[in-house]
């Protein structure tokens, strides 16, 4: 059925036609883009894998610890002078210890299996993206990105609702963020215990990356002791927990030790800063960095990363004008605000869009110039001429002319 589309620049009909034209783009380029975009999904695969490795390491450690305890238990019994009953009693305790180990190991095995399944599910999800389900797959990706943002911002209820409504359970890392939240909440409550426990769990990897996070936690505990004027305890604490770091971080150690000579409300600038509650915020930031590094996550939310890239790629001076088309996200105030500090996009070649049809004006659909200098696409003007006996009316100025007065412009 014929559509009476008036030549209105913002006609929804025109936009629909342009969108249809764009969608008819060669599918191979869409697939190429898809392949490129999959390469951005490192975090998606790495996080569950790190979780998996962590479980494996933890289970290994349990096995090592319990086995060596049992074996040395036998050695002790062999060296000691047990009576028959004592020997039986001792061996029974070792047996129950082994049984406990078996149970733990079975549970650990189940966890490892689930985590391996999660890793596989993610690989399958990446593989499942193809030309047929592209828009659905992209929609899922947007939802994943949104869940990542909510978890980082601690909007847990919203995150969970979104996960449930779209069945994203296997594709997001809720538990990982909960693990981080426990430590962060404690640090914000001026408690270092969960953070220290976390450091112990990940000791070898933190050591490999030469992290000094544990040292900083210990320093803060020391400062808290000094603040409470428990100087003797502070010194004992320093001997036990700070001294081992002396070889690598002597200067910092000395600086903090010097706080012993001051009161917590000192005005001396070098040491005043160490007593400030801001130090705890600094610890939270440090933890986030270490945590993200260990799990292969970006420090910033995925949403921000993609949004910045998109806004910069879309940003032109025309976006900030009043007549900017509503289809451009940058016509919205909120997007304009976010894009303000970002660089403009750059073009090396002209890309012209017909005001009437919103289609690209290229060699297949070249731009035609009216005598008043306004430019529209060949297709739009041919259509207009056909419907109006060869008469052309400029939709923006009302200028009228015959289609024979049109001149072709050559834009490279």
């Amino acid at each position, binding site marked *: 059925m014929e559509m009476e589309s008036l030549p209105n620049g913002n006609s929804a009909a025109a936009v629909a036609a342009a969108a249809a034209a764009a969608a008819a783009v060669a599918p191979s380029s869409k697939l190429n883009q898809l392949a490129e975009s999959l390469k951005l999904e490192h975090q998606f695969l790495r996080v569950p894998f790190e979780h998996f490795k962590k479980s494996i390491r933890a289970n290994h450690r349990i096995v090592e610890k319990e086995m060596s305890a049992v074996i040395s238990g036998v050695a002790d019994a062999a060296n000691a002078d047990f009576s028959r009953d004592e020997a039986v009693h001792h061996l029974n305790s070792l047996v129950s210890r082994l049984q406990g180990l078996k149970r733990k190991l079975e549970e650990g095995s189940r966890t490892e299996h689930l985590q391996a399944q999660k890793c596989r599910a993610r690989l399958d999800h990446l593989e499942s993206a193809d030309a047929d389900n592209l828009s659905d797959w992209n929609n899922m990706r947007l939802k994943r990105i949104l869940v990542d943002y909510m978890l980082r911002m601690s909007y847990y209820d919203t995150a969970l609702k979104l996960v449930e409504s779209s069945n994203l359970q296997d594709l997001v890392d809720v538990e990982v963020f909960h693990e981080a939240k426990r430590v962060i909440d404690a640090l914000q409550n001026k408690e270092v215990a969960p953070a220290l426990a976390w450091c112990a769990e990940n000791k070898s990897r933190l050591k490999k990356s030469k992290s000094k996070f544990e040292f900083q936690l210990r320093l803060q505990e020391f400062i808290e002791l000094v603040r409470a004027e428990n100087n003797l305890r502070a010194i004992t604490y320093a001997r036990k927990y700070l001294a081992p770091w002396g070889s690598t971080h002597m200067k910092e150690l000395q600086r903090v030790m010097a706080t012993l000579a001051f009161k917590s409300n000192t005005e001396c600038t070098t040491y005043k800063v160490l007593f400030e509650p801001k130090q705890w915020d600094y610890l939270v930031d440090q933890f986030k960095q270490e945590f993200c590094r260990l799990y292969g996550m970006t420090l910033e939310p995925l949403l921000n990363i993609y949004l910045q890239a998109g806004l910069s*790629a879309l940003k032109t001076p025309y976006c900030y004008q009043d007549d900017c088309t509503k289809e451009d996200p940058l016509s919205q105030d909120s997007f304009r605000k976010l894009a303000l500090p970002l660089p403009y996009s750059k073009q090396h070649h002209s890309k012209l869009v017909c005001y009437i049809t919103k289609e690209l004006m290229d060699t297949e659909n070249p731009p035609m110039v009216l005598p008043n200098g306004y430019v529209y696409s060949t297709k739009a003007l041919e259509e207009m001429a056909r419907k109006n006996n060869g008469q052309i009316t400029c939709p923006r100025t009302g200028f009228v002319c015959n289609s024979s007065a049109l001149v072709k412009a050559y834009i490279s």
Partner: protein
Amino acid sequence: MELGNIKDTFDRVAKKQKLSSSKSQEVIDQVGREIENALAKLQGDPASPVDQKAILVELQTKLSIIGSQSQLEGSQKELNINLSKYTKLLEKSFNPDISKAYRNVDFDFHTVNQIIASHFYRQGLFDIGECLTNESGEPEDTALKSHFLEMFQILEAMKARDLEPALNWVSNNREKLKQNGSNLELKLHRLQFVEILQKGGRADALNYARTYLAPFASLHMDEIQKLMACLLWAGRLDSSPYSELMVPSLWEKLAEELTRQFCSLLGQSYESPLSVAIAAGIEGLPTLLKLANVMAAKKQEWQAMKQLPVPVDLGREFQFHSIFVCPVSRDQGSEENPPMLMPCGHVLCKQSIMKLSKSSTRTFKCPYCPAESSVGQCMQLYF
């Protein structure tokens, strides 16, 4: 990036892990058995004496043999090797740090929260949007929310084959829809007419046509005639020449068109701006990451720049504005430096023409063809 290869590597990891796990269980069982044996010997006959020390020493020896023979350490080592192989493969096949192109500028999360809430309203996820507004403590955009609520109610009704809300809306917004060049109202009435014809029969359908289709007669005569002819096939329209009016996809198409018109009347875009911006980001990020890497290697400043130094190619659907780039100076067209059409049909920016004409004193030759022109013959273009 070969996903198949990555999957195979992971399968190897999983296999090694199972192997290591079962080896551990094996060793634990062996140790357990030996201890049980020793226990049995100790407890055997309560009457006869036993040499508990000898039994214990024997047990100790047996355990150390198990320890040295066990391939526990070996299997764990193999597992670790495969674990690090997989990690390295991931780092090689994927971009391990996509935040390299991130700029440390003020990215106000309040604004982001509001954008996300609006996005949820657009997608019809009203309870999730409300939940976000509550958790983030942001002010609610009640106007936007109620508009989209209305739209989704109309669409939900249409899904249930109820066209009433839709028809109400189009008649309320008749003028604006006409301005937009949309004949949505006619299409909805047509659909309703066909529905009535299939269910109610000729009389009802005829009444409906007289009331609602007649006003369109002057502009859409052939369409009305077609619909009147349908009366002949009441109840068996699918065997008529007009069976295409029965197709269920008509409902979907109409729902889509209604959405477009609704958004357009609201002054909103059809696609969620967040979806568009993120899609653009996903397409453009690989180029930006490459750029960031190159600039970092050359020790150039990434953070503060007014304009990206290279183009980021996006699909046609992201081209919202006409950008003219002068082929001579590579400058972008602007108000101060607009594109100018030369008599030969080629276009340069004003500054290039001024330069070529030595500040409009002389005639100059077009860089692309032998034609000569003067500044006075050039016309400013408006895209």
